[in-house]
């Protein structure tokens, strides 16, 4: 039985899709069966980040409306055979998502995979609510800036109110992934530091992904960053996060605020 995870943030452009692809790839590289689901109907991106845009025939909406079978819509990754993508429709909008249809698709996916990772659209409207609706756990992606953190706080409140799990009176597992973290700028006080973010959001930390050009390069290549350059700091940070998701106890390697010089060297080498 799969674990269903929603990757969400409230704010756009913080790295949800990159995170979905990187964590999905990292888990699948470990041999587990993973399906990444693009919920951003009308603005789909996950297919591009995974380099599968030319292979989309059927999509989530076709499956929800019964026009295609789930097996017809799933796209198996060419590099990692245990990784599959369920793409969103680019020609429709979020109104085409139906509550019952999503419940049915998620239930089917649960039988086929070990992990189902749902890439939520930005915002707090219908699309985002439906993406989180059937999740067992949530990864909240945030950037070290006040607007992103406040939006994350808002989405955490919605996870505790609008999900099936919350409505059953159960506790929604939530963890935080801080993306685009620049230790040098945080040290200069130009960014929120990790402690402040954790204090404001008060949920457990899953990982810290340093700001890295490698992430952008990987997205443009259509390859998850954990595949394109496994030794880059972003890839290593995502792999650590995936191991923590798996229940492993991995030490949190916070790009330190104190070791200024080392961090700078480190950052330059990675860039």
């Amino acid at each position, binding site marked *: 039985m799969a674990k269903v995870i929603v990757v969400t943030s409230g704010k756009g452009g913080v790295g949800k899709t990159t995170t979905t692809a990187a964590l999905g790839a990292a888990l699948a590289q470990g041999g587990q069966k993973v399906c990444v689901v693009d919920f951003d109907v009308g603005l789909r991106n996950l297919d591009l980040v995974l380099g599968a845009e030319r292979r989309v025939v059927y999509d989530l909406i076709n499956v929800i409306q019964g026009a295609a079978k789930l097996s017809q819509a799933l796209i198996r990754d060419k590099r990692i055979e245990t990784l599959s993508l369920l793409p969103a429709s680019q020609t429709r909008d979020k109104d085409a998502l139906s509550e019952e249809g999503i419940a049915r698709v998620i239930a089917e996916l649960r039988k086929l995979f070990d992990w189902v990772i749902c890439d939520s659209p930005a915002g*707090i409207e219908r699309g985002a609510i439906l993406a989180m609706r059937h999740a067992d756990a949530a990864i909240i992606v945030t950037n070290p800036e006040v607007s992103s953190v*406040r939006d994350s*706080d*808002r989405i*955490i*409140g*919605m996870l*505790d109110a609008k999900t099936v799990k919350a409505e059953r009176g159960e506790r929604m597992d939530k963890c935080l992934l801080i993306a685009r973290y620049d230790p040098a700028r945080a040290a200069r006080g130009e960014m929120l530091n990790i402690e402040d973010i954790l204090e*404001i959001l*008060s949920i457990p930390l899953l990982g810290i992904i340093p700001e890295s050009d490698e992430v952008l390069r990987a997205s443009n290549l259509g390859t998850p960053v954990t595949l394109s350059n496994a030794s880059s700091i972003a890839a290593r940070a995502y792999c650590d996060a995936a191991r923590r998701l798996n229940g492993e106890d991995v030490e949190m390697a916070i790009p330190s605020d104190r070791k200024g010089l080392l961090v700078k060297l480190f950052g330059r080498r990675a860039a």
Partner: protein
Amino acid sequence: MIDSLIKPVSHARSEGAGVSEVALTSVAQSRPPMRFRGRSFMAFALTPEPPVADWLSELDNWIRNSAGFFVGRPVVLDLSAVSLSGHAIAHLVSELEQRGIRPMGIEGADAAQLGPGLPPFLKGGRPAGVDVLDGTAPAKPAPTKPARQDPTSLLLEDPVRSGQSVTFLNGDVTVMGSIGSGAEVIAGGSIHVYGAIRGRAMAGANGNPHARIFCQKAEPELLAIDGYYQTSEDFSASLHGRPIQAWLEGNVMTIAALD
């Protein structure tokens, strides 16, 4: 006990709250349209309990102690606690009439049992607060279940997240976590926060100038007590991030550090 009794006079149309008016225009165009107005009255619900004879003698005691209590007051007979035949209902109503009580309607009975000589069947009554009880009255006319005490404090174990609004006008609110930026807590009494206030905290919201606000870390967007407020701009920089309490001195909000 007293029930508020809403008497909708017409079912045809009811828009907005308060008095609903329905115009019947189809009968005669020359005459002004007939208007029906809704009225609501606060009515006493008399609730007989078995055995009815004992209940009646208890009612007699009440009437002796508070003569004229029922004069001019609408009374409804609530028969949900007893099961009486049509004949027994007629007898009970006549007993009440001998005591000067004329029920305007009967609740909690089978409508078919109520013959033409009896008060009409009513439904849809809602409980209402006791606001006309005679101070000298020794006891309620009928023993009823003790009213449930509403809690006078609210404890929130989880943080109040951005976009959430918690309103509790019955008393104090205690927040174990923080009130996030863009979140608000509105309390009739004081607000106690064991984390940070980054959003809005409004204490004494239904006119209590003695309410206070306490928190472990003050970074608020707005603090208010009994309608007097300060925004973060008015807030002394020396208090930012510290544990504080806020209270009213006259019309001025005073904030002091707790450490």
